[in-house]
């Protein structure tokens, strides 16, 4: 590749053609501030509208300051990143942004984690000229089951719009209106609830300010914990333990499984269980369904729909109900682990401890915002009593722990309670892209071939490539597996299924880039994809050290089937652990 030589702040640097000034400066250790620009390098995600102009630099021979985030390096370029002109411009830009931004940092949910706040601090802004006479643009607040939009705090960086349209291809959000009235909003400025939003939460994950945040359910959980008539049960999703520590100053990728369990016990939960248990259960149901469809297909039954698609991701379920309702018989009918857990807790476990479902409150800790919506779905409740009462995110849990004066870092490791806290390595890897299908392969292989797997690490299914595929030899039967993470990547595979071109037997889809570890409810990555990689490594490390790494060998799962469910895909299992999907595509109404 052609190399370009230039100087930045009098230091020479050589970079490949096409490199931006901002990145070239980074090579030299010069950190030009950026605000709207964001990149998740290993996931091929970049937001570069050059909208905020915080990153301007002076380039010799050019009349205007140039935004370094999109300006490409040229041979012999002389760049200055901190001249008086640059610093004044940067300050003015920041003052303009702040002049139309609420000053309620003390009570803003993003306070302490806000990129705008950090930038104001970094630039040393101490006053905002004209503040007394300047008007502020205001916009109504919008609360959906998962996400709160507070657009007074929107700085039009358009990261959310990029995630929603380019990465997720959901198209729920767009920049609308002009000038002072400009906001990012759904079509016709309807509320998010009435848009095509899947609640994947990737907009929240990248929002630099408090404009997009999650609905906070911790007050409800606190109320339940304080009610002596309620037995409060908590389940924790696999991706949470690989990220929670970040909110307590630990290195990304630090596993805090044991500390998290202890913290939950200190918070007052009566039973600390694990969604991983339900993940093992999901594998039993989904794996059996895969083998059933596969066997029927091999016998020439054309009604057996292949590929089977995983269905544990609620953002993904919302996506295909909206965009591929014609394919709604293709995904597995298995409920997500969160909902399987709730269904088993409020039947099997409630019976075991002799209480009614009304006296039990099930709380889930999820890396996800779509889970908040999922647990409110009507089909997941009995007599108006939901299987899962409240879903709170990793971030909410961290705040909750801090409020309770618990120093996570200093806690002893605790163990999950039995029986719904016991899980295998297969359950753990649900938290990362490729993990669900790897777990399914470990079980389906042994059930299909009747042979013991010699190798448990299917490295060909791992990684961060957006769309991956691998063929696993099932004793002479080549099983073609597809993996997509990010809904835009999922759309590609779904388009092939729709047109009949898909050669896959099974496809795993996760709505969020990286899978649940990159979920909308996780500690904010602020555009650092190394964090997501570190979380994935932590998940695989946890799997590796588990004594049992195949779902069908989980003794508590075996016992659950013996005592309660019968066989996988039995009538009772179907009633409790499977669901159906809806056509949610908006229809064009035509007057007759």
């Amino acid at each position, binding site marked *: 590749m052609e190399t370009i030589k230039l100087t930045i702040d009098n230091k020479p640097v050589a970079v490949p053609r096409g490199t931006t000034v901002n990145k070239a400066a980074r090579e030299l250790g010069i950190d030009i501030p950026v605000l709207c620009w964001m990149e998740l390098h290993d996931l091929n995600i970049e937001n570069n509208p050059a909208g905020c102009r915080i990153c301007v630099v002076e380039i010799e021979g050019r009349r205007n300051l140039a935004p370094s985030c999109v300006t490409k390096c040229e041979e012999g370029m002389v760049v200055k990143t901190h001249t008086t002109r640059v610093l004044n411009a940067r300050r003015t830009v920041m003052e303009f942004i702040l002049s139309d931004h609420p000053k309620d940092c003390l009570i803003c949910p993003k306070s302490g984690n806000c990129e705008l706040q950090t930038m104001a601090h970094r630039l040393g802004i101490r006053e905002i000229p004209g503040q007394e006479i300047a008007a502020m643009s205001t916009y109504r607040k919008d609360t959906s089951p998962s996400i709160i939009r507070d657009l007074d705090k929107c700085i039009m960086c358009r990261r959310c719009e990029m995630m929603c349209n380019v990465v997720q291809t959901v*198209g729920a959000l*767009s920049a*609308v209106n002009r000038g002072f009235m400009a906001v990012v909003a759904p079509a016709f*400025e309807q509320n998010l609830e009435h848009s095509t939003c899947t609640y994947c939460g990737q907009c929240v994950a990248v929002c630099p300010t408090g404009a997009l945040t999650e609905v906070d359910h911790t007050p409800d959980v606190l109320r339940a914990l304080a009610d002596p008539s309620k037995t409060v049960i908590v389940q924790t999703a696999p991706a949470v333990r690989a990220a929670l520590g970040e909110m307590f100053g630990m290195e990304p990728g630090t596993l805090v499984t044991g500390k998290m369990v202890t913290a939950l016990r200190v918070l007052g939960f009566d039973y600390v269980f694990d969604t991983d248990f339900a993940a093992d259960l999901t594998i039993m149901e989904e794996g059996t369904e895969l083998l059933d469809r596969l066997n029927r297909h091999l016998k020439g039954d054309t009604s057996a729909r292949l590929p089977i698609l995983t269905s544990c991701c609620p953002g993904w379920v919302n996506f295909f109900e909206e965009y591929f309702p014609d394919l709604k018989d293709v995904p597995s009918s298995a409920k997500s682990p969160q909902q399987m857990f709730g269904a088993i807790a409020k039947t099997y476990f409630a019976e075991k401890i002799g209480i009614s479902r009304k006296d039990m409150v099930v709380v889930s800790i999820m890396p996800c915002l779509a889970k908040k919506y999922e647990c409110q779905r009507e089909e997941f409740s009995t007599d108006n009593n939901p299987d899962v009462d409240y879903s709170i995110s990793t971030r909410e849990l961290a705040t909750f722990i801090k409020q309770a004066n618990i120093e996570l870092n200093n806690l002893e490791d605790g163990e999950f309670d039995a029986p719904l806290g016991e899980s295998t390595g297969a359950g753990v890897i649900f938290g990362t892209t490729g993990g669900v299908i790897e777990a399914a392969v470990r079980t389906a292989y042994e059930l299909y071939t009747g042979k013991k797997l010699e190798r448990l690490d299917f490295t060909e299914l791992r990684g961060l490539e957006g769309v991956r595929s691998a063929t696993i030899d099932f004793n002479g039967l080549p099983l073609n597996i597809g993996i997509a993470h990010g809904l835009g990547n999922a759309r590609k595979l779904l388009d092939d299924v729709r047109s009949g071109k898909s050669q896959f037997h099974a496809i795993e889809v996760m709505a969020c880039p990286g899978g649940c570890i990159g979920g909308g409810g996780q500690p904010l990555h602020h555009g650092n994809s190394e964090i997501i990689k570190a979380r994935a490594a932590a998940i695989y490390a946890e799997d590796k050290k588990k004594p049992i790494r195949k779902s069908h060998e989980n003794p508590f799962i075996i016992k659950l089937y013996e005592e309660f469910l019968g066989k996988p895909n039995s009538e009772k299992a179907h009633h409790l652990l499977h669901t159906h999907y809806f056509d949610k595509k908006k229809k*064009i109404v*035509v007057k007759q």
Partner: protein
Amino acid sequence: MSSIKIELRQEDVAKISEICASFNNDPQELINVLHKCQEHFGYLPAEVQEVVSNQLAVPVARIYGVITFYSFFTMTPKGKHPISICMGTACYVRGAEKVLDEFKKELGLQVGQTSGDGKFSLSSLRCVGACGLAPVVMVGDKTYGRVAPDDVKNILKEYE
């Protein structure tokens, strides 16, 4: 943006599809498609945008974004007699705002709105190139120059 609903008939859907097809259903042609649709319907109600969205495979949020960006596009139908008051610099300094206020008062409309009977709609525009006549008002194709607030009642009478 305020909006008026439309009940689409089968032939309306066919017309929109035809317009989109004439641009090869190319998402890049969105603005041209919207021009043609507005020419046909007089405005771009949500229902029309949804059909365009289906045809071009462009999210309807984005279409709404384009429509709210360009002042030419509107989601409310223009009245039979569209009234435009020039708010260009010359007209403005010679009192166009007072004229506009008078129209608002007489018609009970805000800028961008259409009267319930569909007769009048009110809009403001920037410079019709007749600054010598400031302030200028246009009703349909007819131009009125040196309009004073007192003239407003008489202008409206012409269209009763």
